[in-house]
């Protein structure tokens, strides 16, 4: 069992994803904005972060948080990050797996919403296994 933290401003999606991941045997926490996410992770380091990209106050807050974790937070540096967004990889403004890099988009995997919860579960398992 792992402790997962979902950081997503969409409470309904976060609740559904948390339910499915809990059912798979994980302990899941939810934060609805990136500001409280850092303090939450400092109190208890999750095994995996599931992070949305766009937040109401900042369209790239998810990226910013990922960069902060990778480059500024010493004890969170190795934390696996699974990024979620409703912006499609096909969209001209979008991004995809090939966009992941350590400076611009420092995450471990990327999933597009709407996501099948089975797919989400399998991606989470893969990242947790890779970590081990």
């Amino acid at each position: 069992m792992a402790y997962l933290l979902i950081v997503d401003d969409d409470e309904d999606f976060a609740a559904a994803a948390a339910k499915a991941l809990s059912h798979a045997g994980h302990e899941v926490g939810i934060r609805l904005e990136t500001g409280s996410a850092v303090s939450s992770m400092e109190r208890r380091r999750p095994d995996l972060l599931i992070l949305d990209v766009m937040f109401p106050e900042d369209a790239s807050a998810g990226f910013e948080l990922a960069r902060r974790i990778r480059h500024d937070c010493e004890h969170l540096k190795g934390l696996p990050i699974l990024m979620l967004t409703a912006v499609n990889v096909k969209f001209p403004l979008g991004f995809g797996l090939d966009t992941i890099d350590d400076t611009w988009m420092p995450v471990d995997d990327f999933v597009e919403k709407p996501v099948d919860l089975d797919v989400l579960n399998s991606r989470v398992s893969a990242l947790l296994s890779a970590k081990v």
Partner: protein
Amino acid sequence: MGMARIDVAPTAVYELPLVRAAASAPGLPAVGPSLPASLLLKNALWFCRLRWIVVAILGTLGVLGLVPGACSRLGLLPVYDWPLVAAGVLALGNLGFSAATHLLKGSTARRARLNLWAQVAFDLAVLTGVVHFAGSLETNVAFAYLFHIVLACIFLSRGESLAVTLIACVLYTLCVAAEGAGLLAPQTIYAGAPVREGLGPAPWAFVWNLALALGIWLAVWYLTTHLTDTVRRRDRELAETNRRLEAALDERSKHMLRTTHELKAPFAAIHATTQVLLSGQCGPLPDEAAAFIGRISTRCRRLASEIQDMVQLANLRSESQGSLPRADLDVAEIVRWCIAQIQPLAEERRVVFANDIRDAWTTGVEDHVKMLFANVIGNAVTYSRAGGTVRVQSEPSGPSGAVVVVEDEGIGIPAAKLPHIFEEYYRTDEAVRHNTQSSGLGLAIVRHVAQAHGIRVRVESRLGVGTRFQIGLPPRGGPGVSSARNKETDDGLPVDC
């Protein structure tokens, strides 16, 4: 009795401004002397190159003066002293100015202007000497001051160019007045031409001659500065318009991104919630309830996909694609990228790819060309039957750039319906029966991209047998080719349109 002190946060006040804040002051920008340092230095070097021509003319005149009989054959007096001295002074000055200008590269605009001003002052001083020796009123050489006046009008501010004009007027007037007062002996380079003696017998003609020259210079200054101001104002208007267009494009891109997110996110939440219910994690559901929730889930996915396509199509329709940066594109790489994106769908539908992808190049907007291939290849997979094969080939195609063929063994399209497949929301009955999830916008997107890029799309199909798309891409190196650019906005989000 003491009172408890309560810390109260200060009241924050904000009043909505009646006008939208602009990045720069509205209205026409003021016309000012704000040529950038790089341009001023470029002009300073150009001055230096022009000055070598004057050095050559004066040097030639001096050499001719040393050759016996050469000047007299041209109707000139055999002078060599002042032309050679003037050529030497100009040459030495020019070497110094060239070196100084090169050293100033990367310097401030103020230093570049000082360099220009030093060159102008030096030239005017030397020119006044040349004007005196060549004949200030006996020849038209004084009109050489006009070169400096016109150049100052173009490269310096209105005030500075007026200062150059007045300096030229003062120097010329001093020269002529000194000659008139007998302080300097009037000169000429024309053989046999009369030379004044002081003010001579017609002093008013002398004064009018001088006044006419000064009047012409001032008129030239006024006309040139007027024209220059007009050109500069238009230049700034164009720059401002361009800046606003770029800002509008950026704003629209961010708006599109936000709109897509805001429209799709609720469906993602509904979709996830229905999956939780369907999985039985909240308790068993009656079969009929599960069936209805399944419909909700399916409809959510379809709506999310439709929103995606609608926003893409609106994006393609609303923008002037000619204004987007086009780059040389590796067709093979793009096709491979699209196949990789569609691979999960192919696996889900048990469709296999048979690829023969060779290097080929074209020119276009990368994301749009990707959209075109993603839709064509995605359709081939979607409308294939389980166990079917989709063949994707790409190769160079002589002068026509590249050709990509996408061929499936799917349901095919009836001949009568082929002309309609690129229409928005058009779907054949066969396609609807095979797949209920499509928005009917994919091939409309293909049409928009193809028409904007000059891409030829040929479709062959046999009902029940399969469909073949042949896509002919234009050659590499078309107009508006630009190198790859940073795909990031101020927000750190990727933007390419």
